[in-house]
Every structure is written in C-alpha cells, then in structure tokens.
C-alpha cells in the first residue's frame, strides 16, 4: 500500500514544478535580478553599431550632402517607395500632422501645439533633407522618430510628403488629361 501511495505521489509531483514554464533564459524585456537597474535588455555601449546598421552613406543615413541638407533623394523614388511612405506616414505622422498635412491631426485637436502646415510657403520650399532631418532629430516640441523609423522608411515618408505638397498646390494643367476633363466638367 505504501509503495502504491509513493507511486501516486511521484505521478503527481512533476505537475507542481513550473521550471519549464519560466526558464532561466530571458524573454524580451523580462525583468532581471542580475543587473543593478533590473533590466535584462542592456543599453548599447557608447560608440557601438549594431550589425547591419553601419552606414557610411551620409546622404542616406543623415540626410546631408557635404554637410548641407540634401536637395535630392538617395535612391530612386518608385511607386513602391511612395506606397510604403503613405503607410508609414499614416502610422507615425498623421496623428498630429493630419492625413493631408495641414497640421490638424487628432492629437492637435486634443490640445497639442499645432505644427506648421506642410503646404505653407516655407515648407514647400524646404529641401527633402530638411524633412529627413526633422524626423531624425526632432524639431522644437516634436520628438525624434529615429529609433522607430529606419532611414529608408524616413526617405519614403519624405517622398510621400512631397507628393502631398504637390497634390495640394496643383494647377489644372498638372492633372492627367483624363482627370482634367472630369475636373473641367465638374467646375463648369
């Protein structure tokens, strides 16, 4: 009888251990009692570069050419780049700058300081490198987005902002012939 009870106990006992549920490895952001600040994710050592993130291309990574704000894009702006930019703009910029860029996004309506419209004279004249620079380093009350948006995506966003600016300041003559006919008919 005693042997049987012992056997029963042995059968049930393994279920009490949770070791395999919480193994000594760390999952992302798991608290750690090893480091003084309690974080398992360690800050990058000053001056180190993550694998694959070295960029010697100042134009692509810093938006500058010879120290001046770039006036061109570091790669060709294709329809895909523009599409990518549209998506990223909707996620990261539209909440404040508004879906068309007038600076009237939802957060501004809730009391954030209103940014200048992208369709103002000054920002239409600004080079692409300026927008890249603002995303990378922030501007006044706007925080930087360098840790959340990769350089390629930042350029994609800039290309989309450029497209927005053109769309809001287009002349009738800029429209494709098809569209122009429709617009003219509607206008008259």
């Amino acid at each position, binding site marked *: 009888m005693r042997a049987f009870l012992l056997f029963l106990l042995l059968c049930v006992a393994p279920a009490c251990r949770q070791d395999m549920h919480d*193994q000594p490895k760390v999952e*992302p952001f798991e608290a750690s009692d090893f480091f003084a600040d309690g974080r398992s994710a360690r800050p990058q050592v000053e001056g180190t570069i993550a694998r694959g993130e070295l960029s010697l291309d100042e134009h692509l990574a810093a938006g500058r050419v010879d120290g001046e704000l770039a006036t061109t894009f570091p790669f060709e702006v294709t329809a895909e780049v523009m599409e990518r930019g549209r998506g990223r703009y909707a996620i990261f910029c539209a909440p404040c700058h508004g879906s068309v860029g007038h600076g009237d996004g939802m957060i501004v309506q809730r009391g954030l300081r209103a940014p200048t419209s992208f369709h103002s004279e000054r920002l239409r004249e600004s080079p692409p490198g300026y927008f890249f620079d603002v995303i990378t380093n922030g501007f006044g009350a706007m925080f930087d987005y360098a840790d959340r948006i990769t350089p390629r995506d930042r350029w994609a966003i800039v290309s989309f902002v450029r497209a927005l600016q053109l769309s809001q300041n287009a002349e009738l003559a800029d429209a494709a012939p098809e569209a122009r006919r429709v617009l003219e008919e509607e206008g008259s």
Partner: protein
Amino acid sequence: MAQIFHPSANLVAKATIFGAAFIAAGALWIGDRVHRSPYITQAQVAREQPVPFSHKHHVKGIGLDCRYCHGSVEEGAFAGIPPTKTCMTCHSQLFTDAPMLEPVRESWRTNKSVEWVRVHDLPDFAYFNHSIHVAQGVGCSTCHGAVDEMPLVWREHSLNMDWCLACHREPERFIRPRESIFDMDWETPIAWSALDGDTRSILQAAGVESDPVLQADLGPALVEAYGIVTAQLENCSMCHR
C-alpha cells in the same frame, strides 16, 4: 448471529462500484473545466497596470495605429512594448499634471522602466512568432479580440495549445486579407466593394463571385494564394523547438 446486511445491500454495493467510475470521470471533468477556466488561464480577466493605460482611448478614441507603439510586430517575434519616450511624444504636452501619468513622468526623469504587467505570456517551452502570423493574414483581433474596446487589456483566449491548434488545423476559417491585419472591425461576410484590389484579383482567380463574400470562399482562396501549407502546422517541433 443475525445478518448485518440485508440482501438488498448487494445492489447498493454494485451501484457504488459502478458509480465510482462516474465519480472519477466527474472529478476529471471538473479538473479539466477548472484548468480551462479564467481562474487558471486568466482569459477575459483585465490586469491592473501601474498606469491605467487605455487602448480604448488611444486606439478607438484618437485613432492611433498599433504600430505606433508596437513597432516590431511586423518584423519580429516580439510585438514590442513602447518605451517611456513614446508616451512622452504626446504626454510631454498633454495631461502634464494628471496624477495617473506620474509613473510615466517619473520614469522619464529617472530613466527607470515603467513595470507593465504582462497579460499574455506563453510558457517558455512554447515558441511563438508574430511576424509570420501578421504576414500570412492573421489579424490582431483574431487572437487578441477587440483591443480597441479595452480600457485595460485582458486575454481574449486561453492561449492553451488546443487554441493554437484549432487554427493551425483549419486556418481558412480565420485568414483575412493582408491589408486588413490592423483593422479592428474586420468581419466576414464582407461587401465586395470593401475589398482591396489585390484581394479581388485573388478571388477572381479562384472563381469566387458572390457578394457579400463569405469566409468559406475567402479563406480557402487566401490560404491558396498566400501559400500556407496546413500539413506542417501541427508538427510538435514547430512550437516546441
């Protein structure tokens, strides 16, 4: 000596032996129910957080996209929990003296992390990856429920293995178009006109013409087009590596 047991005791004895089987089965059944109940799985139980962060206000109210805060959900296994800096992009100016945001401001001043309480946590022996699900047409709300309606996050599902397998056996019951992954209100049947151009051509290629489109038509067409191989989705080594 008189008989202690009446002859009918035989029947009682038999019934008890027979009944024991039911009692054992009943105990197992109760055990299983408890194991699957919210008491163990924590499904549908909202967690207290150090800051009462409301997805309802931030997602439904002001229309933020999940990726504004959970930025690695498309590329990584881990969806990402936003750092204090993300909150401060807005709360350095909005609600700057609300007491409930004090832990966030303190974290910003002292560089100490806000200690969010994990809501979803698989055992360490199970492997999960967000990016493959997001890329293959499983939307956030399929697994997490209507997060945009949650004042505090809870688990919509048990996260038990049978829940994973229920979908891995028949993904066509849940798959949606890739463009709608972040759409919290996604629902089938869906009107043809609400679908994206790519999805329409997938459906046309599969010969589906109904309007509204049913999941029974949409699912298999997408599984085919996205190249999802159902046969391998039940391999133990895929989740227990």
